[in-house]
């Protein structure tokens, strides 16, 4: 009888619960969706599509992996120069032009590859586009005379004063002042050696040969040292400065994290319920930790930057201060969760408080604390990049500078790769240390 009366009841409750759960499983996604829709409106997503500059995206992406070489003739003086990215620090010397540019007696030929050939001569300039024909430009008084197969395609942009031809092979511009051809090539040019280094003009095989047994390029040092020096002092990529900046960033993270751990360890003892009998001290310290964490790294960074000026020490102090709050809380929680039996055992031998802490508590909590510190070290390396951008130190500074100039995107890509590799290295280093220290091998 009882089962008979219970069964429908049970069925009813189960059905109700099921219905409720089913509703929940629709309601939660619906709520999330509704919130995302609200956010899309609040963030003005429709307007964003209009504001987005996709041409900037194209510049950025192409700059990431390729460089362009400018072949420029000044039409007044007739001087031709070949330079990388139009940079005055990266002009090819006249006797060491790249193979695709030839100059002979007032005639300059630029072979863009795939049959695209540009010629500058005394009358003007010509661009032979395969499958289309020849674009011929001559100055005619104050205007430019353009001869090309009609009708003009949309990749030729012509006016009286300026003609621009853009093809897959490159870009060609003629104005009265000068004529310029850009050739795009993959790779980060001059990454190792700049044009004024003799090693720039060697292939990999020649480099190896000259490093091992070639004649000295500079009389006072072996070739391998000369190479290292040329790479380190590369004026375009500034490897030396970048390496220093990266080191500074890691240093900030290291000093900040371990400094915070050293400061927070005694404070953690004072804030743990089982270590500190005085409730007022505990309460006060905990509120201090809460305050430090609540104020947030950003504000601490600003305050410290005012006092100490820009630089890596300010950054590491900012990390130190912020992490002291987090470590204090974590450490005191870890200390409250220890096994009291070991401390009792030590106490029974007549050890004083300090000895109890050293031999009863520290061995228990050390692995936990260390693993937390190492987790923070890794995330602080990334944080130090941002803090560096604010306090003006380390790779963060170089990165924001490169981004703000809005043209050195290859530098940005370089720094990004470097940062990601460093953080991954720190990640595996801290993982390795954790395994080694905590599991004992």
């Amino acid at each position: 009888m009882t089962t008979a009366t219970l069964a429908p009841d049970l069925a009813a409750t189960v059905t109700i619960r099921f219905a409720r759960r089913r509703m929940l499983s629709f309601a939660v996604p619906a709520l999330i969706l509704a919130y995302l829709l609200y956010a899309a409106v609040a963030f003005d997503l429709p307007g964003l599509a209009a504001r987005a500059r996709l041409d900037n995206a194209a510049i950025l992406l192409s700059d990431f992996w390729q460089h362009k070489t400018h072949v420029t003739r000044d039409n007044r003086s007739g001087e031709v120069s070949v330079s990388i990215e139009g940079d005055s620090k990266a002009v090819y010397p006249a006797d060491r032009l790249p193979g695709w540019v030839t100059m002979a007696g007032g005639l300059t030929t630029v072979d863009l590859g795939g049959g695209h050939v540009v010629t500058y001569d005394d009358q003007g300039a010509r661009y032979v586009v395969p499958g289309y024909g020849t674009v011929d430009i001559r100055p005619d008084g104050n205007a430019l005379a353009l001869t090309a197969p009609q009708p003009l395609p949309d990749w030729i942009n012509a006016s009286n004063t300026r003609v621009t031809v853009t093809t897959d092979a490159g870009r060609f511009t003629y104005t009265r002042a000068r004529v310029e051809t850009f050739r795009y090539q993959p790779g980060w040019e001059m990454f190792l050696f700049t044009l004024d280094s003799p090693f720039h003009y060697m292939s990999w095989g020649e480099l190896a040969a000259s490093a091992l047994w070639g004649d000295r390029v500079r009389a006072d040092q072996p070739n391998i040292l000369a190479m290292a020096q040329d790479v380190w002092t590369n004026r375009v990529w500034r490897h030396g400065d970048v390496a220093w900046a990266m080191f500074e960033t890691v240093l900030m993270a290291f000093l900040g994290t371990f400094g915070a751990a050293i400061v927070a360890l005694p404070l953690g003892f004072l804030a743990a319920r089982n270590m500190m009998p005085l409730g007022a001290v505990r309460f006060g310290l905990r509120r201090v930790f809460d305050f430090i964490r609540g104020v947030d790294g950003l504000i601490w960074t600003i305050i410290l930057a005012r006092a100490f000026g820009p630089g890596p020490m300010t950054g590491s102090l900012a990390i130190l201060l912020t992490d002291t709050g987090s470590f204090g809380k974590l450490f005191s929680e870890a200390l409250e969760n220890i096994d009291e039996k070991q401390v009792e055992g030590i106490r029974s031998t007549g050890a004083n408080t300090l000895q109890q802490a050293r031999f009863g508590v520290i061995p228990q909590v050390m692995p936990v604390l260390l693993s937390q510190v190492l987790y923070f070290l890794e995330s602080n390396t990334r944080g130090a990049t941002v803090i560096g951008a604010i306090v003006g130190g380390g790779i963060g500074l170089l990165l924001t500078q490169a981004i703000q100039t809005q043209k050195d995107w290859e530098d940005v890509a370089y720094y990004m790769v470097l940062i990601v590799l460093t953080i991954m290295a720190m990640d595996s280093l801290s993982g390795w240390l954790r395994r080694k220290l905590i599991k004992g091998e």
Partner: protein
Amino acid sequence: MVDIAFGPGRDPRPASGTSAAYLAMVRRRRMYGGILLVLFVVLMASGFDLAQGRNAGGFLQGLPRVLEFPAEVLAEAWEKRANLPGLVLAHVPALVETLNIAAVSTLLGGMIAMALALLATRGLARWPRLTTLFRRMMDAFRAIPEIVIALMLIYILGGGPVPAVAAIALHTAGALGKLFSEVAENADLKPVEGLSSTGATWGQQMWLGVIPQVAPNWLSYALMRFEINVRASAILGFVGSGGIGYDLKIAMQWGMGRYDEVVAIFLLLFLAIVAIDRLSDHARHRLVKG
């Protein structure tokens, strides 16, 4: 017989050998510990010295001035304390934007992290061969600093919250993905087997067999991430995209005369962070402990 054979009087040497070896080991370990400690202290000291040398101002000169700036700011704000409530209210929309950035990026990042975590967990993965690929993807997402993505997207998209959301979401996907997959590794596989025996697809197996098991822990991690993301979105605002960080930067650049505004923004941010920490602490406690 046996007792006598292994009795104390038989041969004391092995015992004393053991204790000598033990003491030697302890001594060696202490020595290694000492050497490591000295090395560590030297590294810290020289590192600090180096950092100080490359800094604009020294540590000891700066130390007395640490409180100068806050004191100056607070003094001015105290004089104009009548303005504070109004200023706090005026910046609430910016705070809401910062919180929205954090929430949306946690949600989006969390969703990506869910997919990545399941794809990267051994035993659950849809394509077991590709687990390593998804793991490396998460590593890379985690390693890219938010500021890089944010600044590049600001160049393309112009200012505003979207670059910050994209940057934080990407990082969140990597960070949460790792934690999620650690949780999912410990999930009970029996429900999955049961579901697969009924012919459920991979998505159904995960949705009905794994997600209910891991949901409390995942939610707890996501909440913790939300706390972190609130701070990150404030910082990113300072560097260039919208929200309360941007307002703070503008007020700071103005300098003297607008310090009441600085204090108002600071108060707002502080209260928001503390409140969110408290709420999420509470919620996480209930999630994990039931």
